[in-house]
């Protein structure tokens, strides 16, 4: 493979060491997760995924509460973020005047660069008081008969606060991919539609969106992947109680929050640490599968292009 007589082969050899470095990093992540979670996987097996109890002193570990919390926060955030970011993508690509487009796009992309701890602080000092003082009393007064909207503790913290903040963290990803996908619609098709007398809405609905929906789907999948792994903002906002939230305003716990809060204490006990690593393994597998799905779709629609928003701000 390498013939060191030629200078280029030596250069190639050195560069391929770096390539092996990257492969090594990836394999190390997967190997560490598998190796250290192995005792817990053997001991608890598949029921780990649907056992609700998490009791370190009795060595009973089940992740159901945390998995439920994670997916509730993620889906709530997606419910808020998808319509918003579709609107933003459509606005930026179709309705926005050309001379403002660059500036408006930067505003949305800068949102992707804001560190999650700053989002968390903003949530604690802005969103939580707002929910506690305005939103929750309102729902308590008028909608308390709907079980899903019942306010149990009027404290502001909970899955709603967490998903509000996560919404703004995944919004730039979905919005910018929506914008790129809409931009990839050939202009001639759109002009054809305009020539028949269609309004902009008709063109967006009947031409652009059907053409771009795969890219938008890929963006939503990537947003899902980011929301699942979101840690610091969620730790600060979710309330950190190991219960499955029964209402929108309930407190909960997510996988990433458990890891952030208790992993360093867990290390004292072998099986406790192993269970925590199994939680991390779940996160890892979910993120790998999600990204595999999302990237494959995106590669076909907008090529291998990266927009700034796809790399988060931590």
């Amino acid at each position: 493979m390498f013939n060191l007589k030629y200078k280029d082969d030596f250069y190639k050899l050195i560069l391929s060491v770096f390539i092996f470095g990257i492969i090594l990093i990836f394999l190390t992540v997967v190997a560490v997760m598998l190796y250290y979670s192995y005792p817990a996987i053997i001991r608890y097996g598949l029921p780990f995924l649907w056992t609700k109890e998490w009791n370190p002193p009795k060595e009973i570990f089940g992740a159901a509460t945390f998995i439920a919390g994670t997916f509730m926060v993620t889906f709530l955030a997606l419910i808020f973020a998808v319509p918003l970011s579709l609107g933003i993508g459509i606005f930026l690509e179709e309705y926005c005047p050309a001379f403002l487009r660059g500036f408006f796009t930067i505003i949305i992309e800068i949102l992707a660069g804001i560190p999650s701890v700053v989002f968390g602080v903003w949530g604690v000092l802005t969103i939580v008081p707002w929910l506690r003082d305005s939103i929750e009393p309102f729902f308590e007064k008028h909608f308390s008969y709907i079980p899903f909207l019942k306010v149990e503790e009027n404290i502001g913290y909970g899955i709603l606060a967490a998903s509000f903040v996560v919404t703004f963290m995944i919004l730039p990803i979905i919005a910018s991919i929506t914008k790129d996908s809409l931009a990839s619609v050939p202009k001639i098709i759109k002009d054809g539609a305009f020539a028949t007398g269609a309004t902009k809405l008709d063109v967006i609905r009947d031409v652009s969106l059907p053409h771009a929906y795969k890219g938008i789907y890929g963006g939503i999948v990537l947003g899902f992947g980011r929301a699942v792994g979101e840690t610091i903002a969620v730790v600060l906002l979710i309330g950190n109680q190991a219960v499955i939230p029964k209402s929108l305003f309930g407190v909960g716990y997510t996988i990433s929050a458990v890891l952030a809060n208790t992993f360093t204490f867990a290390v004292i006990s072998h099986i406790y640490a192993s269970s925590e690593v199994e939680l991390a393994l779940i996160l890892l597998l979910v993120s790998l599968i999600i990204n595999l799905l999302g990237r494959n779709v995106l590669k076909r629609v907008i090529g291998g292009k990266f927009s700034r928003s796809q790399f988060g701000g931590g």
Partner: protein
Amino acid sequence: MNEPDKNKIDKEDFHLNFPINKGYIKRRKIYNNIAFILAVVAFIIGGFPVFHIVYSAFIVGYKYLNWHFISTLPTGFPIGAQGGILNAIVGDLYLIVIASCLALPLGIGSGFYLSLFGKKGINSIIRLLNELMVGIPSVVWGVMGFYVLSTNAGLGFHFGFSALAGGLTLGFIMTPIITLLTEQAVNRIPASYIEGALSMGATKWQATKSVVVKAAMGGIFTGILLGVLNIIGQTAPLLFTNYYNTGMPTGITGPGGAVGDLAMLIFIYIHEPSRILHYKAEAASFVLLFFVFALDIGMRLITRLTVKIFEFF
């Protein structure tokens, strides 16, 4: 004489036979306007947090935003009630330098390999791995960093909670970003540049040295800045690899090797039941946002400038 006036007849026919439903057109126009308003509202809701985050960080923390805050170590009780955030700024520099020492050679080298020597198979595999690594949650990187670098038991490097462990973990996060963007930058160079160098008898190393690095400089810098931007706000990996230090580090490994970190400082201050520390967390958020926006703007300027330079040549 008796020939009919063609234009007139056509016009009349057109007007007589073409059905126009004025109500229908009006309705579609109204729908279009409603859609426009909804899109604008969505954009305003999406753009609002950017301004409100900066505004609230400034309005709460403005009285701490002075030179004293940036240039002194935290003191007082609870720790940080007096003094500033110098430990965090110095610690961030430590972490960025250590992460760069790992990520720059690894990322730029791999990027060059992929675009200069790559074949279709290996390129798609490495690209996929990088894209997957970008998507791995930061808390998982933290767990991996703890077991590989930090812990003093079992396998691993036994660095302890230290700048080296934290910095290398951040380097793992930074590497795929730099690789992807370096590859993209080199692929964007017109093929004739590299082919021209090679046809003059240059080896690929010489071509890299004299052509690729210069032409792709902007893209590579964009990647580096994006990587730094990404790790400067990371908190979750540092929880398990470097935690926090209120003073200056005495080394980069072992006891005393931990460094402060701006994101970590904010995370710890906001947990404390003390109003002063909450205000200081907001002030520190403002400082962090300042760095993040400066990097972001610098990145955009570099991208713009290199595009201009390309057009110039």
